[in-house]
């Protein structure tokens, strides 16, 4: 039971300074729980890929500690429990998709039968005989995900799995990730597609300029829900709403009200305002999107 609750990824003060002096990752304290789908968000250059590479031992940390699947990053015993796709799929262009997976299966000491299983899972069986170099970006990405799944890993790390895909490819990959994420497996996914992360992830970590600026559930990150009200006369409306929810929950600005309350209160609000002679022209729930929160936390107005 204790093992189930223990984080599968835990870092303390994890930092990476490259030889040029550039501090790519700055004291990240991160915790990914077993069985959850964890979204790792951040603008380009924020330190996402560097952090993920440190978790699988491709890059050594300058300072701090990390434990991944119960082992130090890069430890063969830990790697046996991790499947990853980092910085795009890297395979031999002169070999077929199937042969590439067989090479990976050999290295991972996985049965060759498993190759056909994962090819079936990613729906690439009919195209597995083609040379990897002739695949489209989407097909290459699928082979990358298949390679990550070969070990039937406890922890699956996917770094921008939808990068470079067209809308159809993104939709297919989204479905694949959703399918993979079900069950006992832990998925750590970095993505720019905030809508997808919001829909599929249990918790998220937001990294900006190398620092983990927020780590929480998606619900907590989005904050309290609210209600937007536009009503006339506004002075009378302000009195009614303040009486209902208290002054701290009512924000009056630009001729409308933002109420910090559950949207389920909408009917009661409308009824009270109408009964008080206030005409309601607009009343709707207010929800922050993950994108709004992301831009607020990272200060990246353009997104990336």
């Amino acid at each position, binding site marked *: 039971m204790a093992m189930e609750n223990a984080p599968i990824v835990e870092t303390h003060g994890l930092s990476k300074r490259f030889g040029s002096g550039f501090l790519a990752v700055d004291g990240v304290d991160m915790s990914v729980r077993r069985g959850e789908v964890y979204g790792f968000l951040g603008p380009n250059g924020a330190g996402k890929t560097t952090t993920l*590479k440190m978790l699988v*031992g491709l*890059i050594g940390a300058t300072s701090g500690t990390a434990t991944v699947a119960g082992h130090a990053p890069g430890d063969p015993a830990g790697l046996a429990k991790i499947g990853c796709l980092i910085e795009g799929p890297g*395979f031999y262009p002169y*070999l077929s998709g199937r*042969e590439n997976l067989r090479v990976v299966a050999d290295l991972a000491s996985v049965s060759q039968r498993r190759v056909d299983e994962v090819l079936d899972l990613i729906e690439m069986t009919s195209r597995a005989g083609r040379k990897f170099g002739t695949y489209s970006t989407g097909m290459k990405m699928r082979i990358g995900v298949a390679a990550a799944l070969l070990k039937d890993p406890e922890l699956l790390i996917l770094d921008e799995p939808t990068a470079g895909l067209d809308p159809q490819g993104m939709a297919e990959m989204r479905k694949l990730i959703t399918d993979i994420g079900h069950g006992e497996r832990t998925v750590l996914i970095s993505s720019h597609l905030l809508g997808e992360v919001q829909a599929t992830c249990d918790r998220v970590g937001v990294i900006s300029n190398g620092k983990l600026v927020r780590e929480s559930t998606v619900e907590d990150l989005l904050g309290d829900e609210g209600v937007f009200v536009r009503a006339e006369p506004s002075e009378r409306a302000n009195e009614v709403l303040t009486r209902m929810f208290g002054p701290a929950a009512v924000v009056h600005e630009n001729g409308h009200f933002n109420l910090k309350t559950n949207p389920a209160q909408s009917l009661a609000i409308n009824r009270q305002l109408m009964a008080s002679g206030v005409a309601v022209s607009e009343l709707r729930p207010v929800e922050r999107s993950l994108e709004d929160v992301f831009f607020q936390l990272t200060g990246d107005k353009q997104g990336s």
Partner: protein
Amino acid sequence: MIATIRAEWRKNQFRPAFLVSLGVVAASTLFVYGIVWYLATHPSPGNQQGVSILTLYPDQFVNYVMGIGLLLGEAMAVVLGAVVAGSEYSWGTTKTMLTQRPGRLTNWSGRVVVFAAGLGIMALVLFAVGAASSVVVAAFEHHAITWPAALYIAEGLAAVWLVFIANGAIGLALGVLIRHSAAALGIGLIYVLAVEVLGVRFIDSLNNGAYKWIGNLFVGQNANALLQSFTSPAFGPSAPPAIATNQAVLVLAVYFAGLIVVAAGLLRLRDVT
């Protein structure tokens, strides 16, 4: 380690670089035998130093393919080493390989074993095509087909393989150091074909040859000496090699081991960015 060797073998058995190299070695051996056979049977009227056809018969094939191996094999091995190590970075396969179960040194060991085996196959192809060519020449010239002693063939094969792997290690180490196949290949070829040759000549010329011993520590000099030790009177009079055979074997083996260890250290310690 077995898993790594199996994976390396699976990915390298159809690697175009290896297949093309084997083809080039086979074709070049056939070409050289054909040209020399023609020259031996069609001597120029004024040429006193004609080519002896005796060198083309099966009893001399080991001595004969040594020259081809030296000319062609050194450069080919450097190219192969640079391609095998450097392309792992160009294709992004390093990160795929290093995030599976085996550790970095196990990965590297498997790669070196399979690479050395590949160069062993290249040496076998050189010998097989040389032997076949010599049989064809002997058959056409109605010469008896007699073979060198099996031990002599084995020693020759081992010598060529040692020269190949010592040069291949230069390519491998450059591939890991530079992390790019084209650049590693270019630098390796320039070193083997020009820099080392000029460097040795310069060192040998200093102070009436007082520093010749330094020149005798280079790969090319030792490879040359080792392969020159395989000769016979059929090839005419030749000066004894400047470097003793045992020393040449030792120096080449040290180069191979040293470069592999240095490359292993680089792979072990450096980030895969």
